[in-house]
């Protein structure tokens, strides 16, 4: 307070000139947070990047050469994408119609609570429960056999489908919440206007909602993809960690904590990050091909 008054008497001080550019005491509040991210996220990342170029054999690209020449290692990229892509797409495709339905409901809270449950359960608990529920003597097989849909128990565990189901169960709620918030963010009067002009439900969705939703859906896809992409616990517990579901995070984990080769583990982590960023950039790049503008409608 006093500094401001003094400054007024003597002309603009350094403090006032900074404040004019938006830097004052309040702006400095951002610093601890930035320092934390720089120290615990950016620095480890750069450190890992440096470390990945210092492999045990001494050459610069030794780790990367090893990764891309060993099918047991580079194959993990495709195994990860083969799980993460269909799961994310399926979750998004289920989430959109459900979000449209829930949007119309008056009492959404109970249903959303139930649908959100798996987020809190987490991948470990879902995998643990799946071992029971989908097991040969579990309720799932038992019920299907009692109804007569199955004659012998089907086994989804210890393979691709086990991980797939666990990722849908844990990933869907998150996708759904994001989609629901984007869907409810669209002004209902736009739909009413389209209906007044004679558009049926399908046309309303295609011509009004979809163009407005595309940006949000692209972001939802990216964030859900991130979740499905790091599938370590379920790939180990309900998958086949040595074969069909040997995802890239398992390779990285084994390099770090079983072989104690931190250089190789960092290299795998960098490859993992690069692949994931490529997907995000590609999806967000496609987004810019579509309509961008307000979804709330203009005020008359």
């Amino acid at each position, binding site marked *: 307070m006093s500094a401001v008054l003094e400054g007024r008497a003597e002309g603009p001080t350094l403090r006032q000139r900074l404040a004019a550019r938006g*830097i004052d005491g309040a702006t400095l509040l951002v610093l601890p947070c930035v320092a934390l991210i720089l120290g615990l996220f950016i620095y480890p990342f750069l450190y890992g990047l440096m470390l990945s170029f210092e492999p045990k054999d001494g050459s610069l690209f030794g780790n990367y050469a090893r990764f891309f020449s060993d099918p047991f290692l580079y194959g993990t990229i495709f195994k990860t994408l083969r799980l993460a892509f269909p799961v994310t797409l399926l979750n998004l495709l289920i989430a959109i119609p459900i979000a449209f339905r829930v949007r119309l409901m008056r009492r959404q809270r109970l249903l959303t609570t139930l649908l959100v449950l798996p987020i809190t359960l987490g991948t470990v608990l879902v995998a643990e429960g799946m071992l029971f*529920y989908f097991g040969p003597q579990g309720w799932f097989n*038992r019920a299907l056999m009692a109804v007569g849909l199955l004659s012998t128990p089907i086994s989804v565990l210890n393979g691709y489908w086990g991980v797939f189901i666990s990722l849908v169960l844990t990933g869907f709620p998150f996708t759904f919440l994001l989609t629901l918030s984007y869907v409810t963010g669209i002004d209902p009067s736009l739909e009413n206007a389209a209906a007044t002009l004679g558009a049926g439900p399908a046309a309303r969705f295609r011509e009004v909602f979809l163009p407005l939703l595309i940006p949000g859906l692209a972001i939802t896809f990216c964030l859900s993809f991130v979740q499905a992409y790091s599938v370590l616990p379920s790939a180990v517990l309900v998958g086949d960690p040595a074969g069909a579901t040997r995802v890239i*995070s398992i390779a990285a984990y084994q390099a770090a904590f079983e072989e104690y080769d931190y250089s190789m583990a*960092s290299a795998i982590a960098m490859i993992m990050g690069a692949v994931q960023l490529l997907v995000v950039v590609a999806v967000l790049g496609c987004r810019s091909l579509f309509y961008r503008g307000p979804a709330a409608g203009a005020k008359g």
Partner: protein
Amino acid sequence: MQKSIMSRLWVFAVWAVIGLFLINLLGLIASVVTSSVATRWLGTWLPAGFTTRWYFAAWDEFQLGDVLWVTFQAVGAVVLLSGLLGVPAAYALARREFPAKRAVMLLLLLPLLVPPITYGIPLATVLYKAGLGGTLTGVILANLVPTVPFVVLVMIPFIEQIDPRTEAAARVFGANIFQMFVHVLVPMLMPGVLAALLLVLVRTIGMFELTFLVSGPGSQTLVVALYYAVFASGVRAVQSIDAMAVIYMVTTLVWLIVALRFVNPTQIVGRGKRPAA
């Protein structure tokens, strides 16, 4: 509004998918709970008898007292620190225009866009180098990486809703920035802060990857202990692992229910306009 057969079929299909999802989810949870109180459960619909002794067995076998205490400390510290670091930063980002603002926003988005396992491995390497690997401090530091940006991003819209003239009035009456925060902003922001911190709490209890990579024998949280128990199953009775899973489930569910009393989950990401009806 016309109701054709197609649209009825469509509504039915949507509800069928919701039902299928919920039935399988609830069945999955129910089978864990049932197994945790079962005496013997082999090849039948329901177990032969019910007992609570697995809970006592799990408590002793997995040292759940210690594990819960570690979890409580780690989660408490993460919640407190991410509130203290995140809310002021959100205030600065919501209210001030400064040169590097876009860069700061990008910096905060990155930890949320990169999977924890990707940055967790280099982070664990650095923490082990610094001697913090396997300690409670290391677990807390690692968990702050995703939670602080999360708090910032959730809080920014809440702060933008508050009229800046309120703060101007506080400053005119001679409050410094600290007093303004404590006496004006925090009380007005309380619903938002509570919502953000409860979500951080739930996320941190369930955060597997980072804790798994950084924790050591004495600093395992409940979810990591559960993973090890399932991973090394066969050594211990299945029911006691399930009892532990139920204990884990209850600790997160309590907080989720508390959280949902304060927040509408759909408001977390965007503040959509509600239909007028």
